[in-house]
């Protein structure tokens, strides 16, 4: 199958939020076929490697098949969170878009 290295925002959308020092990133597939592919390939190790520099203690992935969504929970990734982080994005508001910028080898038939 032919693939292309493109950001996953070509086949998904999403949003991130915070609770204390933790963040969640929901990645929502645009189609059921893209969801199946993401569920198989956008794994915890892939996401952990991508965010390796940001200091998360653990990363968990939850699935919501009904929503075509993968929900990643990144513990301790906010360097102190809304109250104590010195970063400009204290609440991880941009983490969702950052993950959507991850390039993967995506099958061309999913790229409409």
């Amino acid at each position, binding site marked *: 199958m032919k693939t292309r290295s493109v950001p996953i925002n070509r086949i998904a959308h999403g949003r991130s939020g915070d*609770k204390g020092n933790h963040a969640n990133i929901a990645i929502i597939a645009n189609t059921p076929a893209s969801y199946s592919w993401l569920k198989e390939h956008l794994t915890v190790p892939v996401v952990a490697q991508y965010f390796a520099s940001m200091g998360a203690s653990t990363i968990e992935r939850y699935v919501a098949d009904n929503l075509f969504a993968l929900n990643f929970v990144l513990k301790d990734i906010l360097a102190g969170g809304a109250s104590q982080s010195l970063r400009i994005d204290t609440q991880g508001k941009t983490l969702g878009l950052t993950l959507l910028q991850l390039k993967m080898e995506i099958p061309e038939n999913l790229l409409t």
Partner: protein
Amino acid sequence: MKRVRIGNGCGFWGDQLDAPVELVKTGRLDYLTLEYLAELTMSILSLQRQRDPQKGFATDFISVLKRLAPYLIDQPNLKIVTNAGGVNPEACMQVASEQLRAQKVRDVPIAVVQGDNLFPHLDRLLEKGHRLAHMDNGTDLATIRDRVVSANAYLGARPIVEALKTGARIVITGRVADASLTVAPAAYEFDWDFDNITQLNRFAGATIAGHLIECGAQSTGGLACNWQSVPDLANVGYPIADIDEQGEFILTKPEDSGGLVNRQTVTEQLLYEVFNPAEYFTPDLVADFTSLQLEEVGPNRVLVQNASARPATSTYKVSIAYRAGHSCAGMLLISGPQAKQKAEYCAQLIWKRLERIGLRFDKQYVECIGTGAKAPGVFSATNSNFSQNLNSAFEGELPEVMLRIAVSDSRQDAVERFSKEFAPLVTSGPPGVSGYTSGRPPVREVFAYWPALIDKSVVDPLITVKSLTFSPNS
């Protein structure tokens, strides 16, 4: 069949002041909810109350109420539920009633829900063996007890229903779970029974409705990834949950408003700030989002069905804030060529000048905004994902970057000294330093967040509902 229309006109303290008025004007609402309290808002309000016993509530609510007053007369069935009470719901009620009286609005009884504020009871609770341990790491609250400035339990919908039963048209609470602001009106209107397990899924539906509307425009087109397809965001309509007796609801917004409600915008907000979607904890229940069915049933109308839940846990979450020093962050514009290199050099100059007078900080941090600072280290040449990406390749040729430097420390005077090191860079740094127009960056006190749990049986006896009714001659 009876339905209840609940709209949220405020997603946080600082949200658009016109939104609640527009929503009431055009939303055909039964209930307006207004949500003012973020995780750390209570600490700020708590300090305000310590300085002035009449303060400690969200004063924006009074400005909003002033503008809503005519609609409370025109729409005699409209009710308002808000957590604007902060750490002083009674003072909020007094000021709100004075405001209505000044505008000659009669027959608008107000009630307050209190009992969430555990700060006055902390020592007694600790003595009795309630550790209020940090939810993440189990540390005892006793280790930071002397620095605590606020402690509030997240109450649920039950006391708000009790407040509505007094005949109140405005219910003011302190800390309650955001979703419960919506659950309560639905439970009251449909006479749902909190203790009837066969009705649990109805509460789950209303909880999800509350979760979807609590952040205002975030479910009606705000933040939507597909932002270019969202029409007229300038006039964005705030969200309305149109709920039926079974807890199923249509998420929508006022007709002729801007924004967008579709499966995408609703799903994005559904998972916002959610961890395990099969276990969404509120004081009222533990909702499961993985059974939900979302269906677009018309333009800007999404039907949400099949909510499910298991009964609530035996604990309330407690949000505690404690003093954690001071911090300061300043920014300067750094022009290219070599913008990034110059920015890093400027940061070194600041650190060296402060070290010269013996100052180092507990935490210090430098960002070159424009080079991927939003996610430190991710947009770098060492990340294989971006090694061939322009983001790293053209760093040397960026037209400009924003240099942002931040420190935090237990010593306030040291942080204040730091705030004075920015301006000199305009004349004593490399060329192309600008953007220093708004004075020295402010030094602010840091309040750290301490989430904990407490048995409901400890808090429930503290909960009170108090109503204030106008005398007809007032």
